[in-house]
């Protein structure tokens, strides 16, 4: 059964949610991965969106974190201040997924500007909930496409701390922080080798002694994912 790298990235994210109780997600791949995890790995997984929906059970991948489906299926809907103060800040949500335009070797993230802050070449959307999600949730996983413009030697702006990040899951493989906090390539996806990942990273990426290869998507994972995105 053939698959695309983006599919495997989503499936790899979903697998990481097995055994977790709650996950904080934005839209895009993390949302797809979390819904997939509920379908395949962890039916009781609590999905929390920053729009205030706790325990949402979306049938479809939402375009926006404010889609009505999320509020209708949620166990509780809370205001945005309550979401950040009562739910994120005290670490009540076990795992958070974050994305970014730039990732550095310590998993710090930039989603603010490319170029100088006062005269940016590219103005990105900005912080959103990420700075406090990243220090509030006990565990953070970063999801990003692997390339030299994303995996940079130095961030143009540090929007978010990488201190709680346990994994960076890309379309090429998985990076995890080593003992000193610097990211190490610990797994490549099938058909990718360490050289390709290193070439797509601006800094001199460390590679684990025992580099793993991500398991191929199972038929069940792939069927569920394709069913989900077709809804």
């Amino acid at each position, binding site marked *: 059964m053939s698959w695309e790298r983006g599919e495997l990235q989503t499936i790899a994210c979903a697998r990481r949610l097995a055994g977790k109780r709650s996950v904080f997600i934005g839209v895009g791949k993390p949302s797809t991965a979390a819904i997939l995890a509920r379908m395949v790995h962890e039916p009781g997984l609590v999905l929390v969106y920053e729009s205030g929906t706790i325990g949402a059970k979306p049938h479809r991948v939402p375009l926006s974190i404010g889609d009505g489906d999320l509020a209708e299926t949620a166990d509780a809907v809370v205001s945005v201040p309550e979401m950040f*103060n009562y739910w994120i800040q005290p670490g009540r949500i076990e795992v958070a997924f974050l994305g970014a335009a730039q990732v550095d070797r310590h998993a710090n993230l930039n989603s*603010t500007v490319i170029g100088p802050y006062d005269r940016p070449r590219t*103005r990105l959307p*900005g912080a*959103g909930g990420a*700075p*406090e999600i990243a220090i509030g949730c006990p565990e953070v996983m970063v999801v990003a496409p692997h390339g030299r413009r994303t995996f940079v030697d130095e961030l143009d702006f540090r929007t*978010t*701390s990488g201190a709680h990040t346990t994994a960076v899951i890309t379309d090429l493989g998985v990076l995890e922080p080593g003992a000193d906090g610097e990211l190490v390539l610990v797994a490549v996806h099938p058909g990718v080798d360490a050289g390709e990942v290193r070439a797509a990273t601006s800094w001199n990426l460390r590679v684990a002694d025992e580099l793993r290869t991500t398991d191929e998507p199972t038929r069940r994972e792939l069927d569920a994912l394709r069913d989900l995105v077709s809804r």
Partner: protein
Amino acid sequence: MAEVVALAEAVDGLVRDGDAVALEGFTHLIPFAAGHEVLRQRRRELELIRMTPDVLYDQMIGVGAARKLVFSYGGNPGVGSLHRFRAAIERGVPRRVEVEEHSHAGMANRYVAGASGMPCALLRGYRGTDLMRHTRVEEITCPFTGEVLVAVPALNPDVAIIHAQEADAAGNVQLWGILGVQKEAVLAAQRSLVTVERIVDELELRPGGVVIPGWCVDAVAAAPGGSQPSYAHGVTVRDNDAYRDWDRIARDDDTFRGWMEDRGLAGARA
């Protein structure tokens, strides 16, 4: 006590050139009709405040109505960039816009402080980020534990504008579904306007419903469909295609201007 008036009259009475205006609605109940009325009445030099400037603020920035933007996330949700927001900041088109940016937690707590009559609020945030150096936050030490926290200044807009599902004749307002920060915005503001899908004889309290008493609101105006292409939970549906189309419309300076002019939203140029 809220007066129930026509939208044009409400905007005319409450929104002035130069005001700090918060049009809130967190991905839901975004007050498009009221924002468009502000543009039709050619209000300018506004300080636009909003956690998530999306298509509405892209439009307002794109016609040059804003002198300043206070926000935490400026994107087209699920689609990508806000091209008018980027044009203003990257190229000064149609004009430079001063930027004050926060995190969502910071903005939410700024509204909470504003609604609470407090000068500031505390949170555990911003530290370890470059935002600390670029925005208005201060470190503060917990007198009990010694932990260094962050204080954000209260946000008290001149005017808050929100959209809700219902109001009664006395101007009591009810909204439900995703609640966002609208109640806080209204309570924090000096003046407030609520547009609603419908005026009812008597509010029937809903599951998940939040009621804002009419005596905390200045004006209520009926604006059925007034949050489209956003939506009003249980009444209208989010027009995802409009959000996707906006990417194409806003990407090009001339396409954008034509689109706005066709709808009477571009204002007269000096």
